[in-house]
Structures are given as C-alpha cells and as structure tokens.
C-alpha cells in the first residue's frame, strides 16, 4: 500500500503536467470546490493521521486547537528542516515529487484558513529548494496558488524559506523564530504556536510527510486512511532505513507490519549484510533510545514487535523505544556502541542552542565523558555519572533537544552497559582501530 510514493518513479513526476496526469491536484479541486474548511479538518481527524515529525501528535487535533480570532491572520508552516541523524524521508519526498507537498500545503492551508504559508527547508538542501520553487511557480501558473484559486475566492501564497542548517530550527518554535529572521532559539511555552506562533499569530507547524498525506485523505476520505494500519497508528509511514542492511533507502510501509518483516523481507531492507548478525537498532532517528536485537524484534511479553507508535514504545524505556521520525538505523555486530553513542552525543553537543543551562552544559559534559571512555581514559564511575547527567537534563529543558540528547546515552548504557565497562577495564584493547566488544555467549539474532 503506497500513498505518498505511489507515483514516485514515474518519469517527469516533478513537473506539474505529469503530476496532474497521475491524479495530482484533484484534492485541491475537491476540497476548495466541494468542501468547507471544517469538513477537511473533520476528514483529517477521522483519518487518525499522526504527526510524522517525531512526536506523533494527532494532526487533526492539532488543527482544531488553532485559535481563530477575528481579523488576525493564521499561518501554516511546513517543517522541512529534517536534520535528525538517520532520517532522510522528507528530503527524498520533496526532491522526487515536490508537487505532493505543495498539493498538501494548499489543502491544509485551506482547512486552516491560512492565506500565507511557508515551507521552511533545511539550508543544506539548496537543490531541493530550487526544485520546490520551480514547482511552486508551476502551480501559480496553473492558478492553483495565488489570488482566487480555481475561481473559489480563496487566496494562498506559498513561500519557501531556506534555513541555516541548524538542527535546533527543526523545533517548531525555534523554526518560527528563525522564520521571523531572528536567532533560532526555542521559545518558552506556553503560549503555544496554535495561539501565538509566527509573528504572534496563530500558527500550525506540521511535518512534510503529515502535510503530504492530507491530499490523499481528502481524495479518499478519512475512513479509508484509518482502515490502513493498526489501532491508533493509522496510514502509511515513510521509513528511512540505513546502516548494515542489504538495501538501505526510503520505504513506505503500512503501519503495523512486524519489525522482523521490515528488516528481513526483500520488499524492504532485505536483511543484514551477508555474514553478519543484527546487534542493535535505533528505530526512529538518533534521539530515540537504542534497542538490542532481542528487544527490537520482540516485546517483553514475547510478542512480535510491530512498526507502530504503540508497539515500539511498549515496555516504556526499559525495553521499548519510539517510532519517532522513522529514521531506522540498523547495526550489526561490528558496531561499537560506545563509539556510536559518542557520535550522537557529539552531534547534540554541537547542535544545542545554548539557551538553557541543563542542555548547554550537559550535552557538552556527556560528549567529553564518552569521548574519554572511548579513548580508553574512562573511569568506572563515569558510567553512572553519564546516567545521572542524562537524568538531570531530561525534562528540565525549554525544548525537547535536551530529552533527545539524554535518551540515546541513557539507553545505550541501559542495554549495553557491559560494553562501556569493557572500555574502562580494557583500555588497550578497546582503543585498537575497529575493536568491538563481544558479549560472552552473545545472542545477536540470526
């Protein structure tokens, strides 16, 4: 079942003519000509579509929270600042079929009553920005954007704004600050963007994938979308698969297939590279807890783990993780978890905005301590120190970057403590190039 990537391999799909020939922009016509904004919102609510940027908050509910005072403009902002390590789905989608996003933007803006909308794209993706701008121009030329869209009296202007490449600007309020031309520091909440967002006006910020899915929902109805998936995880999800698998890439999966199927099926990752075994998986982008092979394939209750929001988080952080943004990083037994954790910690150290003290100082501290352990200068008490520092950052920061920085460190120690201890007790062996600790009787699966 493919929704977003259905026509992605059609040659010339990035041009509006080919896109329209394949059923593109039908949702715009349907929504603007036959539906009211509230009806569109209602369909999205019915679909059960959840935010695809990482938090998984229901999109329809987010829309219904939008304050609608008289005489104040509302804005829709598309968060295309995808910079989570391991996640590259939005990049792929915008690059291949820019019109899918633009169609979703028009439908969503119509539902929210926004007359100006923005796509905030990560600065490194300059060529994607060029593709989007070309596509937007095409949409203007066809009368799908601008004044009086399709003769309905509804106006919409769509702008693409390049960011500066900062991870923090993917946080919605930092994104809004950046969009306003200021330093990208997250704002204190409340007020939430739904009340005071861009230029102090009510604003909805949604991920590229969430917005892109709305046009299919308008075309086929919310119930059809809700029929795909399991329980509260409805629809399809783009998963960016990377690491030691045979076929890395972006896959659109119906939510609810098993993790085992996703890793080993030929339709998706195609299994672990030859001669190696699965050791660990980061299931939703670098900020979610890493899980060992046993924990990712089966839940604590012994059931097969599914690719859904609920199943992946089953067991809490003790044995579970999160679906997050769908950055699926697979590691085989040649991966040193300490080194991997160092890479993540260094990233968050580099990307912390420096506004609030736990994150500013804590991320740097964790980076330095893990660096010491990795280079063979660690002390046994450093491992507990890391756990404690992570605990003191988590939940005490302005924005979720603090949580994102502390979870991977805490989880790596939770599941691979012996590896950290080995680095401390065997510094000479551990610092040899390519050295990896093998747990005695390691049961990395298959």
């Amino acid at each position: 079942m493919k929704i977003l990537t259905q026509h992605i391999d059609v040659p010339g799909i990035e041009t509006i003519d080919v896109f329209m020939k394949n059923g593109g922009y039908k949702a715009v016509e349907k929504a603007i000509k036959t539906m009211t904004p509230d009806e569109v919102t209602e369909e999205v609510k019915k679909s059960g579509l959840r935010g695809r940027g990482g938090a998984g908050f229901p999109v329809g509910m987010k829309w219904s929270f939008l304050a609608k005072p008289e005489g104040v403009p509302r804005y829709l902002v598309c968060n295309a600042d995808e910079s989570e390590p391991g996640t590259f789905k939005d990049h792929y989608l915008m690059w291949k079929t820019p019109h899918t996003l633009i169609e979703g933007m028009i439908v969503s803006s119509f539902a929210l009553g926004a007359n100006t909308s923005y796509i905030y794209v990560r600065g490194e993706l300059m060529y994607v920005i060029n593709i989007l701008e070309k596509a937007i121009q095409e949409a203007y030329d066809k009368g799908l954007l601008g004044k009086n869209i399709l003769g309905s009296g509804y106006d919409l202007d769509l702008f693409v704004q390049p960011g500066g490449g900062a991870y923090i600007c993917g946080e919605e309020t930092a994104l809004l600050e950046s969009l306003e031309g200021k330093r990208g520091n997250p704002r204190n909440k409340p007020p939430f963007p739904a009340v005071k967002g861009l230029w102090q006006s009510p604003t909805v910020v949604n991920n590229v994938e969430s917005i892109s899915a709305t046009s299919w929902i308008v075309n086929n109805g919310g119930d059809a979308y809700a029929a795909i998936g399991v329980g509260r995880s409805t629809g399809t999800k783009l998963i960016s698969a990377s690491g030691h698998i045979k076929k890395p890439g972006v896959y659109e999966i119906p939510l609810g297939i098993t993790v085992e199927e996703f890793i080993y099926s030929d339709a998706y990752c195609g299994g672990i590279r030859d001669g190696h075994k699965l050791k660990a998986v980061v299931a939703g982008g670098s900020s979610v807890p890493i899980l060992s092979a046993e924990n990712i394939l089966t839940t604590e209750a012994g059931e097969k783990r599914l690719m859904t929001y609920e199943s992946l988080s089953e067991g809490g952080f003790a044995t579970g993780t999160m679906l997050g943004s769908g950055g699926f990083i697979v590691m085989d037994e040649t991966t040193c978890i300490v080194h991997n954790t160092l890479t993540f910690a260094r990233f968050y150290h580099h990307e912390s905005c420096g506004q609030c003290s736990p994150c500013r100082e804590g991320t740097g501290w964790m980076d330095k301590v893990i660096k010491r352990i990795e280079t063979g200068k660690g002390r046994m008490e450093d491992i507990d120190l890391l756990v404690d520092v992570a605990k003191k950052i988590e939940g005490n920061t302005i924005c979720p970057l603090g949580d994102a920085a502390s979870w991977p460190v805490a989880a790596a120690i939770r599941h691979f403590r012996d590896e950290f201890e080995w680095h401390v007790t065997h510094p000479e062996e551990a610092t040899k190039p390519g050295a990896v600790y093998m747990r005695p009787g390691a049961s990395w699966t298959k």
Partner: protein
Amino acid sequence: MKVTIDNITLEVEPGTTIMQAARMIGPEVAPPAMCYYEPLKGSGGKCRACLVKVTAGSEKDPRPMPKLVPACITAVQDGMIVENTVNEQVLETRKGIVEFLLLNHPLDCPVCDQAGECHLQDFSFEHGVSSTRTVEDRNTFEPVDLGDNIKLNMNRCILCYRCVYTADQITDGRVHGVMHRGDHAEISTYIEKAIDNDFSGNVIDVCPVGALTDKTYRFKSRVWFSKPMDAHCSCDKCSGNVTLWYRGDEVIRVTGRKNEWGELKEFICNTCRFDRKKTSDWTIEGPTNVSRHSVISANKYGAGLIRPAFPIAQAARDYKLIDDDRDRSFLTNQASLPAKK
C-alpha cells in the same frame, strides 16, 4: 486567585507568575533566579534554576503538571498548588542546575570583582553540593574590552541573556547579542564594536556573575570592604538615584539601586556611573539597606539559612541525633518562616 506555595496560601492578581507570588511570601520560599529579571521584558526561563513542582494545576483541573515548570514564566491558576523547597525532586534538580552552571565556570572567585555580590556564588552555596564530579577541561575565552568602561570575561558568563535584553530594551542601536551556540556560545558585540551608549553601563549591574565588570572599579576593593550609601544628584539623563560605594572617604564605585532580589530599581546613565566619583557630586541620603544578596549583611553565610522541611525530616529519619550539648534550636526554630498573613 488563590495559590498555595510550600503549604502557604495567598491571594494574588490574575497574571501573576509563580515567582512573583513566591516573592510576596518571602525569600524563604522564593525560588532562586539566575536569568529572570523583573524589569526586563521577556527575561526568564533560561537558567532553569527556578524549576518548581506543580502538584495541582488549578481548581478546575487538579492534575499535577508532568514536568517541573519554571516559576519565573509560569502564570498561576486559581487553586494551583506549588512545591518548591519541600519537594525532593525540585531540590535534586536544582543541585544539578548548580553543577551545570559551574561546569565551565572558572571558579576564580578570589580574583573576581563580583565575589561577595555574585548570584552564582549564593546559588551554589544555598543549593549546590560542595564537591565536583567533573574532571574535564573547562571552555575558555579571552577577556574582551567592550568600550572604555566595561570588561567582558566570557569564562564567567552563564548566558542568562540579561545584558542582551538590557541592551535591547534600554539602549538604542543595539550592537550586543549572543554569537555561536551551545557551550561555545558567547556574549558579543558586533565585530567587537564598543558599546557606546548613555545607558550601556547597566549591563554591569544586571549581570548576575562577574562576566561584565566596571573597569573604573576593577581590582580596587572587595565588596565586603566597601560601604554603600544611597545618594542622588540632578541628572538630565536619568533619575540620578544611585548607590555610592565608599572605601574610606573615597567613592570607588557607583551603581544603580537594587531591591532585595538584586534587581535594579532604576537604570542609571553612564555619566553618573563612571564619571561622578566625588562626594561633592552627590547629595547623600544615608546608608543603603543591604540586600540579602550581599555579604555585607551580617553573617551572611552563617545564620538565617533557608532550612527547608524536607532535608530536616530526612536527617531525622536517616541519622541518629548525637547526645551532646550543642545548640540545635535551629532545627525546630520556625522563626525563619514568615508569619502567616
């Protein structure tokens, strides 16, 4: 609106923050503030020193808030119940915040002009632990001159953003802000351009630590050797209400007047601050009421400490009382708690 903080209930106006309500009760329950500065709009929420536990959100929705909330920017709701010094999680988190703030701080108090009136010193004394767990190198910066009268020592900075808000709100043509990010972020002026503005000197007064210091006062004296006097003059730029800091007969420093929370009551101009250093320039009003933030107040680091109920209860539970004749009246002394209004 009714709000309960540490089991003390009081009536406040709608729109009051938890911090403001707690300050109405008194310093015993007021959370520490390292970045919040009432006269500056938009300040607060950054240092996380004032995180408190809300155990009941409001009368209507009495669920507890899932995370600790910053007291300085969270407005009270009717029927809200807040725990500050009686909550173990809050005290534990605050220890962590002290540790984070000191992580890259040089701890050069013996040579720092701010020592004795430093909020970070007070904060770590009251809420931190006496040992350190870090063995890492600290981040260092070169000291920079911001104009003729202000010295910036980034090593000591805790990035509270107070000076940025000051530069933004009370001086015009702002050239002062934060560059870079994370723990390598630094306060800076545009390409080290001098701050040249009649009110720029106020960034020294708002700085909670010794990052921004007065070059006309640098290394002249220690705070606790000087005598503060309230004085005024007729100034055409500012109100002229200042505090003069005397050493012997000599005025060694002029600052704005601060309230009991260490916040400026009025911003003063640079002429008053840097140029009027003779007694004859001023009309003396009398000795300054010394704030709790000053070591000049008697026995600052000895008596009158905040003795929250929680650690006392914990001590009683975990440790045996040794039977000797030492004075332990402070353990049960309620005098430090405010009388109920």
